């Protein structure tokens, strides 16, 4: 089959592309800055070696910003579309999420409609917003409050996909939770999102975080997410119309704290009841970290979602990753070896003190 993967250079997209290439499909990768596809473990998927053929495109623009002829050629040749492209960093402007996550999905759906090719949409389990308890794969918008602008945009995007499905477009949705390193090695290509919080806390830059000890963090290995997405694309007949939670089950903040405490070099953050937490009482630099980083993730330390995986377990039996402290140890061990959670750089207060001393001389 000829399969288009949008966001092919991203963490999930690259692993999906690798699996599809491995299964002897012809893969075309759409990427904003198309240079090369690097797998999670750092290996490059070269086009010369049956790797994906990269197309430089912009999902925020109609027809992905491609020339009419390129778009038409794509629409006649693709058999499947896997829509991985998304802005996943937190704290970016609302307009960016709207353009990339909602606009990008709209344009991917247009390609699906024009080509007749089935579409696998990569959403997020956190379209559930701030709900706690069991979240089923069939639920979407039940009037929940959203945790941040990223989640809201992904909810709007998945709503578009569902509407298209209701109008007869063949689609499947995969909802990963918080995507982290590989299940067996803990290796991750880039340290983003939750890793940033882990760095700030384990290095002692941020010492208190508003959160509940029984909040659940659902960390899912990137290989499992890519497995589900690639399978949904290749066995589309079995996935059609389904929403698949690519999730691992939650780790409590208590388990997180316990594992962090096993690492001699790590600081362990204090989780403070949100009602008793007042950022105004933090030291000046920690308050800045709180405003700029921690507050974006705050609701993840307060929610208790349990993602139901009935459809995924039926679709891919035996694939369920296990959210064990052992997995968290592997993630942290890799980040430590890679230097990301290593000895901290000189902190802001020390730098400013040093500059002040230099100026006074």
């Amino acid at each position, binding site marked *: 089959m000829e399969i288009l993967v949008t966001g092919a250079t991203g963490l999930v997209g690259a692993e999906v592309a690798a699996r599809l290439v491995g299964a002897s499909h012809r893969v075309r990768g759409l990427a904003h800055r198309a240079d090369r596809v690097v797998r999670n473990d750092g290996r490059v998927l070269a086009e010369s070696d049956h790797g994906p053929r990269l197309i430089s495109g912009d999902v925020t623009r109609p027809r992905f910003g491609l020339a009419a002829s390129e778009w038409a050629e794509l629409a006649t040749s693709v058999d499947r579309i896997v829509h991985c492209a998304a802005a996943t960093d937190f*704290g*970016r402007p609302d307009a960016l999420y709207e353009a990339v996550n909602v606009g990008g999905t709209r344009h991917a759906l247009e390609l699906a409609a024009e080509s007749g090719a089935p579409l696998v949409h990569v959403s997020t389990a956190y379209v559930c917003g701030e709900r706690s308890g069991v979240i089923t794969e069939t639920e979407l918008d039940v009037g929940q409050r959203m945790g941040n602008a990223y989640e809201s945009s992904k909810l709007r995007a998945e709503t578009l996909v569902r509407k298209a499905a209701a109008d007869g477009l063949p689609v499947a949705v995969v909802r990963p939770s918080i995507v982290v390193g590989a299940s067996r090695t803990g290796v991750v290509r880039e340290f*983003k999102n939750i890793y*940033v919080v882990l760095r700030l806390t384990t290095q002692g830059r941020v010492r208190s975080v508003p959160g509940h000890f029984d909040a659940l963090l659902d960390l899912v290995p990137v290989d499992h997410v890519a497995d589900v997405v690639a399978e949904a694309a290749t066995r589309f007949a079995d996935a059609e119309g389904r929403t698949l939670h690519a999730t691992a089950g939650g780790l409590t903040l208590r388990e997180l704290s316990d594992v962090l405490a096993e690492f001699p070099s790590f600081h362990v953050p204090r989780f403070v009841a949100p009602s008793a937490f007042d950022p105004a009482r933090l030291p000046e630099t920690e308050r800045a970290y709180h405003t*700029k980083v921690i507050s974006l993730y705050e609701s993840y330390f307060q929610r208790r979602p349990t993602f139901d995986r009935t459809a995924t377990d039926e679709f891919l039996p035996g694939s369920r990753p296990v959210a064990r402290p052992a997995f968290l140890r592997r993630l942290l061990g890799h980040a430590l070896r890679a230097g990301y959670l290593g000895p901290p*750089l*000189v902190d*802001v207060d020390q730098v*400013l003190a040093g500059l002040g001393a230099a100026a006074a001389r």
Partner: protein
Amino acid sequence: MTDDSTSPRRSREDVHALVAAMAPRPPAEVTDDTELIADLAYDSLRLIELSIALERLFELSTLDESSVATVSTVGGVVALVSDHRGAA
């Protein structure tokens, strides 16, 4: 010296000194063309830390993370600081 510290030349020197002191890979010298990521090994979190240090040193109101994230050179940081000081 107090007068001097508000002049553009002085801010440029201060920004250069701060960017160099915060750099994960400390440079032999810093110019306006020095690249934050390629030359000085800044990553997204260290850029956030740089923005915190800039706010403190120049007494700026909170810098918008997106504007910091799009700055690529030391000269870009100088411009960002002078824009914010001008606006203040």
